[in-house]
C-alpha cells in the first residue's frame, strides 16, 4: 500500500496525463469487450433484451451459441471465404505496394506527383470508393462491362455470380489497400543507409543481388509489422463487402465480420452475434501470437 502511494506520488504527472485516454478506453473498449464476452453466453435477442418498460429476460446458456456456430456448415463456409479474402488481398497489397515503393524510391523528376496520385484511394472515403466500384461493376451501364463490350468481349455478371462477386470485392479492396503498404514500404526503403549500396557496387554486386542481399533483409521488420496490420485490417474489413455486394449473392461474399453484423442487426440475435465477435477476436489473437512466435524462432536460427 505504502509502495503504491509512493509510486503514485513519484509518477503523478505521468498518470494525470494518461488518465483521460484510459478512462475513455475503459468505458468504450474494455467494458464493451467484457460485456460482449458475457453476452456471447446468453440467448439475448430483440424480444428479451428489455426496454424502458419491460425487464430484460434473456438467459445464460453457457457455450450454447458456440456449439450452434461451430456445428453449422455456414460458419465453416464463411470462415473459408474469410481466409481466401484475407490472403488474396494482403498478398496483392504487399506485392504491388512493395513494387510501387521500389519504383518511387528512385531519384527522378515528378515522383512527388506520382506519390500523391497513388495515395488517392487512401484519401477517398471508403464509403465513396465502394459506391464508385459498385457503379463501375454495374452489369448494363457499368464502365467495366462497357469497356469489355467495346473490346469485343462478353460482359461479366460481376455482382450476381458468386465467384465474380468475390473477384469484384477483392479487386475493390486490393485497389483500396495498396497505398498504405506502399507508403509504409517507402518509409522503410528510405531508412536504409545509402552507403550500403555504394559499398555493394564497389564489391561488384548487380541490382538483383543488391535487392536480395540488402533491400529485403533490411526491410524485413517494417514489412512484417505492416503485413500483420494488413491481415488484421482486412480480416475486419466491413465497409467494402457490406456496401458493394452486401455479402451476396446468397452469402457467397460474406466474411465473418459482415455475417456477425447480420446476426446482430439483421436477425437481432445479439447473443449469437457476440459469439461470432468473440470467435473473430480469438482467430486474430491466435494468428498474431503464432506469427510473432514464428518470427522469434526464425531469429534464433539465423
Amino acid at each position, binding site marked *: 500500500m505504502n509502495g503504491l502511494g509512493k509510486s503514485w506520488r513519484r509518477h503523478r504527472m505521468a498518470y494525470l496525463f*494518461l488518465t483521460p485516454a484510459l478512462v475513455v478506453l475503459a468505458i468504450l473498449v474494455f467494458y464493451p469487450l467484457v460485456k460482449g464476452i458475457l453476452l456471447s453466453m446468453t440467448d439475448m435477442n430483440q424480444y428479451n433484451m428489455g426496454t424502458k418498460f419491460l425487464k430484460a429476460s434473456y438467459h445464460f446458456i453457457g457455450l450454447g451459441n458456440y456449439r450452434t456456430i461451430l456445428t453449422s456448415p455456414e460458419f465453416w463456409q464463411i470462415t473459408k471465404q474469410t481466409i481466401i479474402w484475407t490472403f488474396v488481398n494482403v498478398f496483392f497489397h504487399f506485392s504491388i505496394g512493395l513494387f510501387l515503393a521500389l519504383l518511387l524510391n528512385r531519384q527522378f523528376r515528378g515522383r512527388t506527383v506520382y506519390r500523391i496520385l497513388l495515395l488517392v484511394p487512401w484519401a477517398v472515403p471508403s464509403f465513396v470508393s465502394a459506391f464508385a466500384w459498385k457503379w463501375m461493376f454495374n452489369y448494363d451501364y457499368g464502365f467495366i462491362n462497357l469497356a469489355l463490350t467495346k473490346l469485343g468481349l462478353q460482359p461479366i455478371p460481376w455482382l450476381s455470380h458468386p465467384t465474380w462477386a468475390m473477384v469484384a470485392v477483392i479487386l475493390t479492396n486490393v485497389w483500396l489497400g495498396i497505398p498504405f503498404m506502399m507508403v509504409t514500404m517507402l518509409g522503410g526503403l528510405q531508412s536504409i543507409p545509402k552507403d550500403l549500396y555504394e559499398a555493394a557496387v564497389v564489391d561488384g554486386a548487380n541490382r538483383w543481388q543488391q535487392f536480395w542481399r540488402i533491400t529485403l533483409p533490411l526491410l524485413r521488420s517494417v514489412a512484417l509489422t505492416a503485413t500483420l496490420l494488413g491481415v488484421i485490417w482486412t480480416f475486419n474489413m466491413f465497409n467494402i463487402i457490406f456496401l458493394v455486394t452486401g455479402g451476396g449473392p446468397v452469402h457467397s461474399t460474406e466474411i465473418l465480420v459482415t455475417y456477425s453484423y447480420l446476426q446482430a442487426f439483421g436477425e437481432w440475435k445479439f447473443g449469437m452475434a457476440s459469439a461470432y465477435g468473440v470467435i473473430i477476436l480469438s482467430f486474430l489473437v491466435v494468428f498474431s501470437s503464432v506469427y510473432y512466435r514464428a518470427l522469434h524462432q526464425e531469429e534464433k536460427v539465423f
Partner: protein
Amino acid sequence: MKTNNAFTWKRLWGTHVILILASLISIFPLLWIISTSFKPAAEVFDSQIHFIPVTPTLGNYRVLFTMKHNIFFNWLGNSALIAVSTTLLGLFLATTAAYALSRFRFPGHRASLFTFLLIQMFPGALLIVPLYQLMRAYGLLNSWFGLVLAYATTALPFCVWMLKGFFDTIPLEIEEAARVDGLSPFGSFYRIVLPLSLPGLAVTAFYSFITAWNEFMYAMTFMSKEKLYTLPVGMGTFVNQFQSDWQYLAAGAVMITIPVIVFFFFAQRYLVSGLTAGGTKG
C-alpha cells in the same frame, strides 16, 4: 539541362510507363464518379462511354440539395459537427496520452503502449453489440455525442502512436531549460511541446476528422432518425430510395469527398513523414 532530362527519361521510361498506368487506375474511379455526377440521366444510362459529359448539367446537384426540405444540408451539418467535435476530443486525448508515454517512465508504461497496439485488433463487429446496448441504456442512441465518443476512441491508438513518435524527436533539454525558468510540467507541455509538434498535431487532427467523416457502420447502427443521419448514412439510404439513380448518388459522393481531398492535399506530406516517424521510433 535538357540533355540531362532526356537522359533520365531514356533510362527511366519503363518506370514512368508503369507509374502512369498505376496512377490512372488509382484515380480513375474518382474521376468516373465526378464525370457521372455532371451527366443527365440519358447519358448515364447509355451504352456508349463518355469520359467527359457531352451535355454537362448541374441538375443532379440541384436534386440533391432540394430534396425533402433540404435534408441534405441537415446531413452535411451533422457530419461536420460530429467530425469537428471528434477532432477536438481526439486531439485532447491523444496529445495528453502520447506526452505521458513519450516523456515519463512509470510502472505500466510498456503495458499501456502495448494496449494501444492491441486495441487495433478488436473488431468493430464485436464491440458494436455491447456498445449499442450501452448507448441504449444511457440514452445515447440518436445522439451526436455518443458517436463522437465512439469515433474518438477508434482513432485514438493510431494518433497516440504517431504523436509519441513526434514528441520523441523534441529534445528533452528544451523542456528542462523551461522548467528551470519556472514553467510547470503542464506549462512546458502546453507552451513548448505542443507548438513544436504542429505537423504531428496536423496529422492527428486530419486522421480524427477523416475517421469520423468517413465512418459508416456505427453511424448506420446508432442513428435511426433520418434528420440525424450523417452524410454517408444518408447517402446509403438514398441507394434504396432512388434504386438506380446513380447520377444523384454520384453527386452526393462528390460532395462527401471534396473536403477530404482538400484536407488530404494539405496534410499528405506530414502524413507520410508522420507515419514513418511514428513507425521507426516505437
